[in-house]
Structures are given as structure tokens and as C-alpha cells.
């Protein structure tokens, strides 16, 4: 048994502090996305785990719901529209005295009708004469609200706010924008590693320089090319193939560099032996290099996929903001502007956009880390 020294306890506490500081923001967002939107707007998410006391106003049903039993007319119903798990403990019938009665007691309205409210929201309203008003009366209740969570926000955001479509669009951008550079660059990296040709070193140096060239340096000319191309052929300058190629271009240097770094480590005897045996470069590539590179393909796939999925700038410049093209990050930014106070939409939307990255993160963390450690430099 190791001794518990002061340093040990201190480092445990310090690390715990870091962990809490890092997880709390995301956790708060996640909890908020599961809360009822009315509650979310008036109380902090950290209050959602405890039973809270709320004062609310409900309205009884009107004359259509009355039934006659014996000499009396009754309206029997429940105050809550849907089951919320709230427990009423006091109620009142005037705004001056909102908690006048204990639950189960009978209150008297000014018009001599009587109402009894029960813990679960059921009420019986009794009158000697027929109810004449269409609108019911106001009932003030004090209730205990237990922690309650709902998936309503997700339904709303995915179906009504158009995030479901944006989700599909993002997939339609991210998959080819990851696969195309992977295909092109694996041939390219192979050539840079195993083929001899004039200008190879210069090309390699260009790749290394391109690694750090900021994206901003390329946006204006590429956009101009797209506009000219669109005008020339009478097609839209903003399209899926357009953004795939843009992402391919901006991710090309890092993908090639990572692959080249990996291919360098393969034993050259093996490649040379295959060549001596008469295999073409294409055979060597297909039958030896690709099977050996699967783990590094996985790392690069994850890095590029996450980069494209999380990108905002390229999506803004090269895709339209139509519902049929808008990507998640752009949609989220749009919501931040237009629905800035609707936290139920923002928190849920943000969480929807995070689902795929988080899934990849938790299931393929090993490859993700390996890719990053192998030298994550992105242009």
C-alpha cells in the first residue's frame, strides 16, 4: 500500500478540478437540451436535478364539459394538459390569495360554485345551476415539480427548424470530402515515396510549405474560379462537387504529408522485391501498400472527416444557404443570430451537430489520437 502523501492528494484534487472545469460546459448544454423550454428560459440547468417549487396559473374547462349528476352540475377534469409529474400542495382561486387552500379542501368562488383540487391536478367543480360561461376560471396552484426531462426539443429542432436536413447535407459534404482526398493522396504519397521522377523533392517541399498556408490565402481566387466556371457553363457556382473539391484542395497537403510520413516507414526491401518480381507500381500499391496502410488510413479519415464536419468557413463560402445545401455549422450560426434567445433550440441544435463527432471520438479515439500525434498540421 502506497502512502498517501500531500502531493498525491493535491494532484488528485487538481486533476479533478480540471476535469470538472472541462466537462461542465458540455454537460450543461446536454442537460439543457433535455429540459422543457419554458423552464429552461427561467432557471439554470443546475437546478433541474432537484425538486423545485413552482407557482402556476391554470384554467378550468368551460361549460361544454359539464355533466349533470342529481341536482348538481359538475365539471371534472385535470388542470395539467399532459402528465408532468407535478404535485400540487396548495391552491387558491383569487390572485390575492394564491395559496389559500390545502390540497383536497373545497374552495368557494364568488358565484357560490365550489371547487376541490387534488394533488395530481384532478379537480371537481360543482354548481347548483348550469355553467354558462365558455371560459373556465383561473386556479392558482403551488406545486412541487420533480426533475423532468423531455425529447421534445429534439423533435422540434430536427423536424421544424430544418436541422435534420442540414444533418444529411453535412454528411453529403463530409463523406466525399474525406474519401476523395484519401484516394487521390494515397497515390500521390506513394509516388512521392517510391517513384523516381524529376522534381520530386521540390514537390515535397511544396507540400510542406502548403501545410501551413492559411486557408484565407486561397478563398478569393478559388471563389473567382468557381464563379467564372459557373457563368461559363451556366451552372451554380455553389454546389456539392464544388465544396468537395475545395475541401480536397485544402486538406490535400496534410493528408499527403501524413501518408508520406507513414509510407516512409514501410520497409523498402519489400517494395523493391515486388518490383524486381515484375509487379507494376499499380500492383505494388494495390496489393502491398494499401493493405499495410489501413490503420493510417483510418487515422487520416477521422482527422479529415472531423475537420470537414466541423468546418464553417469553407461551407459558408462554397455552399448556398438554401435548406438543400446548408451545413450544420452554418445552420447553427444562423440560429445563433435569429433565435439567440431560444436556448432550447440552440442547445439542442448544438448537441445534434456534436453527435457524430462525439460518436467517432468515443468509438475511435485511438485512431484519432494516433493521427494527431503523427503530426497534426492543418493548412
Amino acid at each position, binding site marked *: 500500500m502506497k502512502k498517501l502523501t500531500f502531493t498525491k492528494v493535491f*494532484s488528485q484534487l487538481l*486533476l*479533478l478540478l*480540471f476535469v470538472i472545469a472541462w466537462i461542465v460546459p458540455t454537460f450543461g448544454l446536454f442537460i439543457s437540451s433535455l429540459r422543457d423550454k419554458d423552464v429552461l428560459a427561467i432557471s439554470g440547468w443546475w437546478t433541474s436535478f432537484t425538486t423545485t417549487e413552482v407557482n402556476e396559473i391554470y384554467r378550468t374547462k368551460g361549460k361544454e364539459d359539464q355533466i349533470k349528476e342529481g341536482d348538481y352540475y359538475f365539471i371534472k377534469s385535470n388542470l395539467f394538459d399532459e402528465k408532468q409529474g407535478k404535485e400540487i400542495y396548495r391552491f387558491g382561486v383569487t390572485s390575492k390569495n394564491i395559496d389559500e387552500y390545502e390540497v383536497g379542501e373545497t374552495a368557494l368562488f364568488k358565484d357560490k360554485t365550489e371547487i376541490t383540487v387534488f394533488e395530481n391536478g384532478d379537480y371537481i367543480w360543482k354548481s347548483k345551476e348550469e355553467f354558462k360561461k365558455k371560459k373556465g376560471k383561473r386556479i392558482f396552484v403551488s406545486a412541487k415539480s420533480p426533475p423532468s426531462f423531455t425529447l421534445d426539443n429534439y423533435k422540434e429542432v430536427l423536424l421544424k427548424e430544418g436541422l435534420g436536413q442540414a444533418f*444529411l447535407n453535412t454528411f453529403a459534404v463530409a463523406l466525399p470530402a474525406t474519401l476523395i482526398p484519401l484516394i487521390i493522396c494515397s497515390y500521390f504519397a506513394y509516388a*512521392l515515396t517510391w517513384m523516381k521522377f524529376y522534381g520530386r523533392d521540390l514537390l515535397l517541399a511544396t507540400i510542406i510549405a502548403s501545410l501551413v498556408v492559411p486557408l484565407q490565402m486561397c478563398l478569393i481566387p478559388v471563389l473567382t474560379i468557381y464563379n467564372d466556371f459557373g457563368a461559363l457553363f451556366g451552372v451554380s457556382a455553389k454546389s456539392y462537387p464544388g465544396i468537395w473539391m475545395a475541401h480536397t484542395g485544402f486538406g490535400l497537403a496534410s493528408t499527403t504529408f501524413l501518408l508520406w510520413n507513414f509510407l516512409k516507414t514501410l520497409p523498402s526491401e519489400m517494395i523493391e522485391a515486388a518490383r524486381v518480381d515484375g509487379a507494376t507500381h499499380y500492383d505494388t500499391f494495390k496489393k502491398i501498400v494499401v493493405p499495410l496502410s489501413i490503420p493510417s488510413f483510418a487515422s487520416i479519415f477521422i482527422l479529415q472527416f472531423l475537420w470537414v464536419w*466541423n468546418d464553417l468557413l469553407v461551407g459558408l463560402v462554397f455552399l448556398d444557404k438554401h435548406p438543400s445545401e446548408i451545413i450544420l*455549422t452554418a445552420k447553427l450560426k444562423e440560429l445563433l443570430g435569429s433565435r439567440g434567445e431560444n436556448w432550447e433550440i440552440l*442547445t439542442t441544435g448544438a448537441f445534434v451537430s456534436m453527435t457524430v463527432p*462525439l460518436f467517432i471520438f468515443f468509438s475511435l479515439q485511438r485512431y484519432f489520437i494516433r493521427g494527431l500525434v503523427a503530426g497534426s498540421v492543418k493548412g
Partner: protein
Amino acid sequence: MSIFSLAITVLIGVLFFVLFFHLSNFLLDYIRVKASKNFAFENSIRVIIFIAPAFIVLFVFIIYPVFETIRLSFYDKVGENFVGLFNYNWAINDPDFKRSIINNLGWLIVVPTLSTFFGLVIANLADRIWWGSIAKSIIFMPMAISFVGAGVIWKFMYDYRGPGDQQIGLLNAIAVALGFEPQAWLTIPIWNNLFLMAIMIWIQTGLALVIFSAALRSIPNETLDAARIDGASELKIFWSIIIPYLEQTILVIWTIITILVLKVFDIIYAMTNGQWQTEVLANLMYDWMFRGGGDSGRGSVLAFCILIGVIPILAWNLYRHKQEQKV
């Protein structure tokens, strides 16, 4: 578009490239068998097939645009008339530009420093604690989240309600609980930059952490044990052994985060859009790309300024590459 038509588009896009390589190589093999064995010819065609697609993409999307952007920075807003240094002159006298340069410098100092520092400290702590790998996972997680997503997360943290109301943003709730006035954090000039930087630090610490963790494992245990036997405190070991050992790694992480910070765009664009004196170069550049129908001259000058920031790193990378090639 429906899910079906999207899937078809995606499939065609990817298949196009698969088929290109497949068919061209197949064709070359076919010709080789038929024609005489001219290896040199076959090889050079093969090289072209292997590198042409990547090279064309590299040329169209990186090489040509870099020089074109530099050219455009000397031209007017539509890129037609030469205007000399007009755009540069405008930049120097533009208050937004000055603000951006100052803010970018602030970002460059604060974010890489703190991310690297936190990453190093956490990697060291986590290495010696049994639940360290879980802790590392949690701290690394923000790396997977988009900047916009992180923006929403933190905007919620910074949310502001009037002094009488219930605070729903955690930071203000804490401030109120401690007896302070609630603040609209993102609208307090100068300080709001720190609140935006916090987001980037929150994300990038994970990167520093995993790279440091990998590097820490390469420190020989004998060295550490020897120091412990000699009675060195953990703090002393950290400063005198671990830090010097990780010098290269620190430099690498520093440059990665520096490059990232120079082009920081998403966070600013999503959170404040440069209001309340939080403007940075990348956001200003995006703004000029589209403001008033777009001004390619001014946009290019701003992009060029970002490039100037990375040139020292670019030169250093090339130098290191040369050194490696010699070995």
C-alpha cells in the same frame, strides 16, 4: 434534397475518382502487354497517372491562389485596375485593422501559452493517477467539437440576465452567488477577448495533452527513478528533467496552436462577429470578401497579413525537412 438523391450524388462523386485510377492504370497495363516493353515510357505515364490529380488540385486550390491573392492585393475591389499600395495604405489607417492586429497578437500570446501549459500540467498529473486516462478523455473531448458548437456551449455559459432575474448562465450564477453584479461578459471591451480565448484554450488543451502524454512515455523511467532516489521533489523533477526533455514537443505544439490561432475565425464570427472590439484578421477578411459586393483587394491584403504571420513557421518547417532529408 432527399436522402436518396444526396446518397447518389455522393456515390457518383467518390466513384469518379476510384474509377479514374482504376481505369487509367488498367489501360496502361493493357497497352504494356500489347506493345513492346518500353519501361521508361510506361513508368513516366504511370507517374503522371499517380500524381496528376493531386497536383492539379494542389495547383488550382493552393499554389495558384497564393500568388493570385498576392497579386490581387495590389488591385482594386474587382481585381481589374492596378492601384499600387492603396489597399495597404487603407489597412494601416483602418481602425478595425489596428484592432484586429492587436487582438491577434493577444490571441497569439495567450492561447498557445495557456493551452500548452495546461496540457503539460494535466498530462503530468494524469500520468500518475489511476483514473488519469478517463480524465484525459474528458479533457480531450472538446477537440472533436466544432468551433461553432463550442461557441454555443460557451455563449450559454456566458449568458446574461438583468440583476433582478434568475441567471441561467453558469458564470453569472456564480458571480451572483459570490455577491457580484451579473455581467454581459461578451460586451465588455478588452476583457471579452479573454472570454473568447477561453473557448480556444478549452479546445486546444486536449491537443497539447495527448501529444504531451505520448512524449512523456518516451522519458526513460531510470532517469526519473534516479532523481527520486536522490531526493528530488516532484516539482523539481518537473522543471529540471521533464521540461528540458519535452523541449522539442513543446515547440511543435506551440507552432500547431499558433497557426490555428492566426486564422481563428469561427469563434469570433459566431459569438460577436467582431463587435465590442473583438475583431480579428480572419473575420475582418471574411467581412471584406462579401461587404458591398466584395472587395478582393482589401480581402487579399488581410489574407496576406495572416500569411506573413505563418512565414517564420513555414521557413522553420522547410529547414527542418531539409535537415531530415540529409540524414
